[in-house]
């Protein structure tokens, strides 16, 4: 990939957020990590509303890393909302959850998640996961989010 990847991580647990930052740094990956801590903040970020109106500071991400158990609007509600937006429905969504429940995995796929990953329990495993995710992003052709829509903001 020619451009630096931007991961938008929606996660309410501060510890998980810190671990992700640490894992990306430890893996030595050139990834810009943006974070939001609940579902409503995530929608505002993606829409470029309020504090997120400056797209240079808050660019549309290469992919969204989505916790399921988010306050205000949970991961399922976000997926449903995103896949209904004509200009955003192609955004890559990686569900990252502590849940190993098959119902949660099934529902995430049903609602159009591109992949479902389980949060590793150690930092070393998280580093491996972030590395593999980055390799996968490098390998795959990513969708363009509508340019006209972006410039209209």
């Amino acid at each position, binding site marked *: 990939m020619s451009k630096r990847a931007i991961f938008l991580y929606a996660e309410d647990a501060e510890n998980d957020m810190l671990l992700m930052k640490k894992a990306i740094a430890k893996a030595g990956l050139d990834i810009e990590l943006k974070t939001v801590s609940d579902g409503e903040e995530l929608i505002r970020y993606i829409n470029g509303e309020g504090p997120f109106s400056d797209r240079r500071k808050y660019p549309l991400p290469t992919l969204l890393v989505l916790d399921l158990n988010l306050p205000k609007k949970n991961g399922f509600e976000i997926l449903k909302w995103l896949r209904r937006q004509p200009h955003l*429905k*192609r955004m890559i969504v990686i569900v990252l959850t502590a849940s*190993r429940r*098959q119902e949660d*995995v*099934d529902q995430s*796929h*049903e609602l*159009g998640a*591109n*992949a*479902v*990953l*389980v949060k590793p329990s150690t930092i070393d495993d998280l580093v491996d*996961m972030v590395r*593999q995710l980055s*390799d*996968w992003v490098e*390998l*795959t*052709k*990513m*969708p*363009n989010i509508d340019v006209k829509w972006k410039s209209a903001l």
Partner: protein
Amino acid sequence: MDEIESILLVEDNENDRMFMRHAFKKTNFPWKVQELHDGEEAIAYLIGNDPYSDRSKFPLPAVMLLDLNMPKKNGFEVLGWVRAQEAFKRLAIIILTASRRSDDVKQAYSLGVNSFLVKPATIEKLVQMVGCLRDWLHMNQVASLNDAVRK
């Protein structure tokens, strides 16, 4: 948690199927791969129509690797069909194509593909790609298609 049992490779080009077989072997690809030759075969396989009615021989896949440019039904038609079926819509689909056209990428994601891969030009790169695919699939949690079908 559902484990991956088998994978479908839907590809009309015999050489490409042979290269993929080589890459699966080189990377110790751990899953059984069923090969199909066009879009109609892919749909018949999923439904379990003849000659694919024996599920012990032709199990439902956890992942489908799908070419775009195929006879009878192309990859977009198969993708659109799968996503419209209550029983199969959760199936993970990865496009594997020679096309780099951004319109094809856009259309595939609009139809709900999970990932989009471009066939590399050399065998060496293909082996690398399949190795990365193997690691990625190991990490992924797949949907339980069998339950969906039973429902």
